[in-house]
């Protein structure tokens, strides 16, 4: 279609959406709106994952990020009763400088990556990369130790969060 394959179309749309929603995240006043836009961004990125044939990861991405983490954010926002009016803004100077720095960073990154060669993503349709089975095998064979440590990490985070959230015993 129009000289581009469907993959490329999808890529373009998804990218555009992702970037747009990301910008909205940064520039919205209302924190709740911010959260919603971020969820949308996550969906776009999940779409990207699917394009890359990372099926398992796409699903996990949505479940963990959009399902758990964002919910957590929403809870906290509700808890603190944040409204658009109550948030003070950074000074215009600061925002300008932040934007400027962002622009410079972009320029530098582009410049750095300019010399990189164009590499086609090499794959076949029947690539097993991204399949649950393959990932499972790698995870439990080569990365068993980090896997176990990650569980310890989650335990630690849980305990820490609870400890921090407790009210001080006066």
């Amino acid at each position: 279609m129009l000289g581009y394959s469907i993959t490329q179309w999808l890529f373009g749309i998804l990218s555009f959406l992702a970037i747009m929603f990301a910008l909205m995240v940064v520039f919205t006043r209302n924190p709740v709106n911010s959260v919603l836009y971020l969820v949308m961004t996550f969906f776009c990125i999940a779409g990207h994952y699917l394009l890359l044939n990372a099926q398992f990861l796409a699903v996990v991405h949505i479940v963990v990020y959009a399902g758990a983490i964002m919910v957590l954010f929403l809870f906290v926002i509700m808890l603190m009763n944040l409204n658009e009016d109550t948030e003070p803004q950074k000074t215009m100077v600061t925002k300008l400088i932040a934007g400027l720095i962002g622009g410079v960073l972009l320029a530098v990154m582009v410049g750095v990556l300019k010399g990189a060669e164009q590499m086609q993503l090499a794959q076949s349709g029947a690539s097993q990369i991204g399949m649950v089975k393959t990932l499972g095998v790698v995870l439990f064979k080569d990365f068993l130790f980090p896997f176990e440590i990650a569980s310890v990490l989650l335990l630690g985070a849980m305990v820490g969060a609870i400890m921090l959230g407790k009210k001080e015993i006066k």
Partner: protein
Amino acid sequence: MINTIPINYYIFLSAVLFIIGAVGVMARRNAIIVFMCIELMLNAVNLLLVAFSTLHNDPSGQVFVFFIMAVAAAEVAVGLAILSMVYRNIKSIDIDLLSKLKN
């Protein structure tokens, strides 16, 4: 589907998302928004990792993303807990008020 998109595009996309996240961190005073922008940055990196994993036909990249997600979850949990504590103390989540590190 055969993905024929050159890797450079993914790199560029990832970079843009990352920078947007960075700008958000610098430009917003609301701590929650700052956290969210940090998540955005993490996701940009995740995307890049997956793209390279597909490029090199190596599942290690995706496994790494897996772990990053786990860590991000843990981090969010703890970070928000801290934020609640701060809110309890100063009744606001404006990060500019947290200037006890001055001088």
